[in-house]
């Protein structure tokens, strides 16, 4: 036990001696929080829209008015030339344009139905889907106004139709603030980056500078070694998490519904598995550059699959199976549940024990992979 303390002391000294590291440990959480949380939004606002109005009718004007009045759209102009409109899309000046051909209104009145041509820049498929959705929403509303509007005076009064009133409520985030959702997620990413990189580069650094050989002729046993390496990063990770949580509370006023000790218990379990992975990577590589690449690779895959930005439920089956080995997946879920919904230990016990299991396996792998002989 005393030996472990000496290793921990040495690691701390080395981490804080590194001139560049201290600012990173403090700056990274702040930068990440501010940039990531604000950048990470799929909402679409200010969609640049253009109208090619060759009809110049009341209908076309009314529709254009609806778009001007909408928060989602930013009308950049009108035009008569469809070629010009295509050109604008090509130049990224407009994202979508609506084309009202000559005779648009006449056809609507005469035939009751008319097609409206909506041309969307679909390079970003997801955005294109959303844009189409917004356009169709506005047109649908307009259709409804047509039904009761002055254009159609002679609707026969039907007998009162059946109607289902839908009352919707959004729990835990009634204002549907996306940031509330993102902050706990970003927190997880924060401790992951710090944890994996610090631990992943550590043992391999001793290999590179040659000090590992000296350690290997000492009576330090493998468990003492790995635990001595793990504890400093665990403490730094916990500190980062706490720091990030405070920033999240101060800057974004995220709710902290659940028990804070429970959150920290879970971060600890999470960090142990992440650091286990980092130390494992560190013991199996020979240069820091290699260790960095391998850590980066796993982190990328783990983060993308974790459900940070997108729901995990609809992932293909193979991805769900892989996620069983993804600590970020578990902890992301736990963290959001505890912070946003106030879930208790029983609610998250499955994920918690999965983390403990992963941590146990990873640490043992790291111990096994660390060889005191060359």
């Amino acid at each position, binding site marked *: 036990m*005393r*030996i472990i*303390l*000496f*290793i921990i*002391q*040495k690691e701390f*000294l*080395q981490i804080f*001696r*590194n001139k560049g590291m201290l600012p990173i440990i403090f700056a990274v959480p702040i930068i990440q929080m501010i940039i990531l949380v604000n950048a990470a939004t799929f909402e679409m606002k200010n969609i640049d829209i253009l109208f090619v109005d060759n009809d110049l009718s009341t209908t076309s004007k009314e529709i254009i008015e609806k778009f001007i009045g909408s928060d989602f759209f930013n009308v950049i102009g009108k035009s008569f030339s469809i070629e010009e409109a295509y050109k604008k899309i090509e130049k990224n000046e407009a994202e979508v344009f609506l084309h009202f051909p000559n005779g648009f209104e006449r056809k609507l009145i005469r035939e009751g139905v008319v097609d409206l041509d909506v041309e969307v820049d679909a390079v970003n498929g997801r955005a294109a889907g959303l844009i189409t959705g917004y356009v169709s929403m506005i047109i649908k509303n307009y259709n409804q106004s047509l039904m009761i509007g002055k254009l159609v005076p002679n609707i026969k009064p039907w007998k009162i139709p059946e109607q289902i009133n839908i009352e919707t409520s959004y729990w835990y985030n009634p204002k549907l603030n996306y940031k509330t959702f993102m902050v706990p997620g970003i927190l997880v990413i924060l401790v992951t980056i710090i944890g994996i990189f610090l631990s992943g580069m550590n043992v391999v650094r001793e290999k590179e*500078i*040659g*000090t590992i*050989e*000296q*350690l*290997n*002729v*000492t*009576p*330090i*046993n493998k468990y003492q070694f790995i635990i001595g390496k793990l504890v400093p990063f665990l403490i730094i990770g916990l500190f980062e998490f706490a720091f990030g949580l405070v920033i999240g509370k101060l800057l974004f006023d995220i709710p902290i519904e659940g028990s804070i000790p429970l959150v920290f218990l879970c971060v600890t379990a999470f960090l142990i598995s992440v650091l286990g992975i980092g130390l494992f990577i560190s013991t199996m590589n020979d240069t820091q550059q290699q260790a960095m690449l391998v850590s980066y690779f796993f982190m990328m895959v783990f983060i993308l699959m974790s459900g940070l930005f997108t729901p995990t439920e609809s992932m293909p089956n193979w991805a769900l199976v892989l996620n069983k080995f993804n600590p970020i997946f578990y902890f992301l879920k736990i963290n959001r549940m505890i912070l946003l919904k106030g879930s208790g230990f029983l609610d998250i016990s499955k994920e918690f024990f999965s983390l403990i299991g992963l941590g146990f396996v990873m640490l043992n792998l790291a111990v096994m992979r660390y060889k*005191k*002989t*060359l």
Partner: protein
Amino acid sequence: MTTTPNSPLSTPNSPLQTPHSQIIKVKNLVKKFGDFVANDNLTFSVEKGEIFGFLGANGAGKTTAIKQLCGLLTPTSGEAEVAGFDIFTQPEIVKKNIGYMSQKFSLYNDLTVYENIRFYGGVYGLSRKEIKERIGFLLEKLNLEHVRNTFLKDIPIGWKQKLAFSTAIIHKPKIVFLDEPTGGVDPVTRRQFWEMIYEAASDGITVFVTTHYMDEAEYCNRLSIMVDGKIVALDTPGNLKEKYESKNMDEVFIKLARNEV
């Protein structure tokens, strides 16, 4: 299995006449890396309190041998005992009883002199009090008290070597292994370094040292000369010079290396 012409078993007695206190016993030790035989059937023993030298050109297999004795490498075959413990089955107990200073510089550049020694002292299980005492004693002896809180990267290489050696014996091991300890050091410092080695030996620490400096070889009580992974001679420097009719170790070595004997 070939027997080398100068089998250690046939060498005269060492100057230190303590026949029953062999602290290192090696028999038919073989280390192969794939097809390459780095250590070919080494057999020798080291007496307690001796300064035992391993002389050889680069790549002769000295470092490989020392790493096996320290438990850093597992031998391919053979038998070896260090400080009374089997290096195959009890490498971790062996480690408690030895000190090691590698070719590569092994202290931390980003820690101070004091922190380096404290760390290794702690790792070897010394108490805080012992560590404090020994560091004070050690720095005083080395005349390095003024750099106690200096980062290791900022002190001259000669001082670093001395510190590395002192650190390697901070826990008063039975044996210390030194793998080319004086590489890249000026002659004056080298001289001082050997004084430290003698001092350690007089404290009862057995010293096992590899070198390719012929003048250093003369300082050893006994010497084994390695060529291409084999021990080709083992005796006191005086006996070796006599046997090979040479003025100095240089000549002995060249004759052996050229296979002229």
